[in-house]
């Protein structure tokens, strides 16, 4: 009964989405108030019905209704409650339902917090989101219903994939999707503005907070995925350049470009058409990511060809969205007039370089991800494009970005003097370099140019952040100026500091990590980077739905125990394959990391992998700072003022428009 209610709700939600996607759009076109007003009720009812369907699936999981094939495939009666709830998004069908729910949620939020936006614009935005939702709900109902029943009903479920039984991965997908799907908001604003032929600064101001929120969630989502891989896969790494990772990273890079170019468009009226294009591309790449991950094409081109129904649907949907939006762009964008960039020494010019580098990086990752697929599909042979390729092209493209980012904190809009910038920044760069050289000397075991480079860049971002805040608040009462500085400036500064923390983390981890595969019998010692790892043996433990062998390793420094690590090798009762759970002692300066391998022939010894990972926490800490910075900027008061006051804000009045 409950699963049928779920299906029924989905169909009702689809009908609401169709109404939401059509009438408000026509209403805005014909200036028909009642039709535009439909946007509101349609959006809310759609949210209610998708929510109801989602609740039905959750109830089916909690009540172990194994007559529902999806529930039987992704859970069993021994599963802890948290994984019953997160099991809803463990597979293809449920992830899509979560996607649809989050899309409906963003739509509701836009509807709720956009009362200051003209009705016509709002109707168009909600309608575009309704059209996207129509596509997804159709996809779920036609090819991927999570409510399909099966007979005979199994007595026990198949269990949740053990890889997913980890708190990090339980919350990773919802946060990631908040980001992915959140890009549908700037996308919808972009399409609405193109339809209306009104691409002004107001458009950029409306889109900015939404873009910042979506982008921050995506940042946290990707970081969580990386953190999970580090904890769970036992390989000591944090990023593999796997196509699935790239699929989430590409929209992030474009989103980063978008966040910056929106700022330039809002403040100075430059790059208007380009900014809209970025909004369209960011969401298109989110859809492409879904296509790559969900169609099975990544596993093999042939797997995709064997079961094409889903893949073909997404492919058609993707082509429709990308084709129609780019078509609309090509039709409307040529008539957009932007302010011109008058000087290469200006903040808008730096933002342009930022955008170019980020887009080249995105295109490079896209190239590397699709190249083997295309070669295979054309019968040109199989190749692998992995970390060595991506690292060697990624670093040269992004390191200049970090240098620019420091400059951005002091450079002026419109026109600045190179002499002034050199006067302020040269000493800062020198100091950063000196600290970059000295830090590894004092802190690290050996010389490394990677470390010097990374630390220099990191310190450079910290120092320029301080200089930026200082110069912005000098003149007059500093305390008052500090308070009056908008939170978007502090958000930007914090995010930039986050990039520095991230860069230091990457550089020190990759330069000084130590890895060792060893054979150890109880009582054996291994010395790694000044830490003495003592193997104390293996004990059996029983978890809620698994049995585990738990290794016990005591880590000593200078003869004193500093940590006790307990890596596990788990065997889940239903899906009997062994899983590793690394034993990690986390620290701001270094992680001690052990994973348990196989028992060896003599019955006493075990294969172990021991790692020392300096500063690896800084990678996720940096990502967290970036995301918090984005959220702070998104909550800037300026975006929440009623429209009358907003229009008098100095940034719009003083902007000289030089249209050509």
């Amino acid at each position: 009964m409950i699963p049928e209610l779920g299906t029924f709700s989905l169909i009702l939600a689809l009908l609401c989405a169709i109404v939401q996607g059509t009438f408000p759009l026509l209403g805005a076109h014909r200036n028909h108030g009642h039709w535009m007003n439909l946007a509101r009720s349609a959006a809310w009812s759609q949210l209610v019905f998708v929510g109801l369907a989602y609740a039905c699936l959750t109830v089916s999981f909690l009540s172990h209704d194994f007559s529902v094939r999806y529930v039987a495939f992704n859970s069993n009666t021994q599963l802890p409650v948290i994984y019953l709830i997160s099991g809803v998004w463990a597979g293809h069908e449920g992830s899509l339902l979560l996607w649809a729910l989050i899309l409906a949620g963003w739509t509701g939020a836009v509807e709720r917090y956009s009362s200051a936006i003209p009705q016509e614009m709002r109707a168009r935005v909600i309608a575009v989101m309704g059209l996207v939702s129509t596509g997804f709900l159709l996809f779920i109902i036609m090819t991927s219903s999570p409510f399909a029943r099966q007979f005979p009903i199994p007595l026990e479920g198949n269990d949740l994939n053990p890889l997913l039984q980890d708190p990090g991965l339980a919350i990773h997908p919802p946060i990631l999707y908040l980001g992915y799907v959140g890009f549908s908001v700037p996308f919808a604003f972009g399409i609405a503005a193109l339809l209306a032929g009104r691409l002004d600064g107001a458009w950029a101001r409306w889109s900015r907070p939404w873009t910042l929120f979506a982008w921050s969630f995506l940042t946290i989502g990707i970081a969580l995925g990386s953190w999970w891989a580090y904890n769970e896969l036992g390989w000591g790494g944090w990023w593999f350049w796997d196509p699935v990772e790239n699929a989430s990273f590409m929209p992030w890079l474009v989103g980063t470009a978008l966040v910056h170019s929106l700022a330039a468009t809002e403040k100075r009226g430059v790059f208007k058409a380009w900014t809209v294009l970025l909004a369209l591309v960011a969401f298109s790449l989110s859809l492409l990511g879904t296509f790559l991950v969900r169609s099975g094409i990544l596993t093999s081109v042939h797997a995709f060809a064997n079961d094409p129904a889903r893949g073909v649907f997404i492919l058609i949907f993707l082509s429709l969205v990308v084709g129609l939006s780019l078509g609309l762009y090509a039709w409307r964008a040529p008539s957009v007039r932007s302010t011109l960039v008058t000087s290469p020494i200006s903040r808008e010019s730096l933002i342009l370089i930022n955008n170019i580098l980020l887009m080249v990086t995105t295109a490079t990752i896209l190239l590397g991800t699709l190249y083997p697929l295309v070669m295979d599909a054309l019968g040109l042979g199989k190749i692998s494009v992995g970390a060595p390729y991506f690292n060697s092209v990624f670093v040269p493209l992004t390191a200049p970005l970090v240098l620019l980012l420091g400059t951005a904190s002091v450079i002026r809009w419109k026109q600045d003097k190179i002499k002034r910038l050199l006067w302020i920044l040269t000493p800062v760069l020198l100091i950063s370099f000196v600290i970059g050289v000295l830090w590894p000397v004092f802190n690290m075991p050996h010389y490394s140019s990677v470390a010097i480079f990374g630390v220099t860049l990191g310190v450079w971002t910290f120092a320029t952040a301080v200089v930026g805040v200082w110069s912005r608040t000098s003149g007059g009462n500093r305390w008052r100026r500090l308070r009056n500085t908008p939170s978007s400036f502090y958000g930007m500064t914090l995010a930039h500091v986050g990039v520095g923390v991230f860069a230091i983390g990457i550089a020190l981890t990759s330069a000084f990590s130590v890895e060792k595969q060893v054979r150890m019998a109880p009582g054996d010692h291994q010395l790694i980077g000044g830490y003495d790892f003592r193997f104390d043996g293996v004990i059996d433990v029983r978890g809620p739905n698994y049995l585990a062998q738990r290794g016990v390793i005591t880590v000593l420094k200078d003869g004193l125990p500093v940590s006790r690590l307990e890596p596990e090798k788990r065997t889940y009762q239903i899906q009997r394959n062994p899983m590793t759970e690394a034993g990690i002692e986390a620290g701001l300066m270094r992680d001690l990391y052990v994973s348990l391998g196989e028992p060896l022939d003599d019955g006493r010894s075990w294969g172990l992998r021991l790692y020392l990972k300096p500063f690896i926490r800084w990678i996720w800490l940096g990502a967290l700072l970036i995301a918090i910075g984005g959220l702070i900027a998104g909550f800037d008061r300026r975006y929440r003022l009623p429209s009358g006051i907003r229009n008098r804000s100095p940034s719009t009045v003083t902007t000289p428009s030089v249209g050509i």
Partner: protein
Amino acid sequence: MIDRYPTFVSRVTISIVFVLATGTAALATEELNFSQAPYESRYYRLINELRCLVCQNQTLADSNAELARDLRLKTHQLIESGESDDSIIRFMVDRYGDFILYRPPLRMRTMLLWSGPALMLALGLVIFVRTTGRRTHPKPTLSTGEQQRLKTLLNTPQKDQ
């Protein structure tokens, strides 16, 4: 090489099915001794750049598959027998094809892959120069004929005043 290929392919297919069905994430370890310290770092670098052929997307270092274990031991053995990195990579490619390398070799058909980033960066540079190089107020340019006419117009006294 040719007659070995079919068996290799079927082995890959079977193992892919297996790996996907079970989704193993167990860890590979074996005890190895290195006669020289640099050998050890070379070994870890190599097995982190070579692909486990029967897994979905894992390096030799991370994979627990039997083939990966064999290839790790082979790598170790080749290093210990004094082979250079290049010759070890050549050995692997001769046996298993370019697929085993996570760093795709530079060939005719990977040309676009390796040159793509530079080409796109060049395009970006052109865009930058064109965007920032435009003048806000282009100076009016008149042809010589037009300048002549302008001169005469300016010099001609107006009759109707």
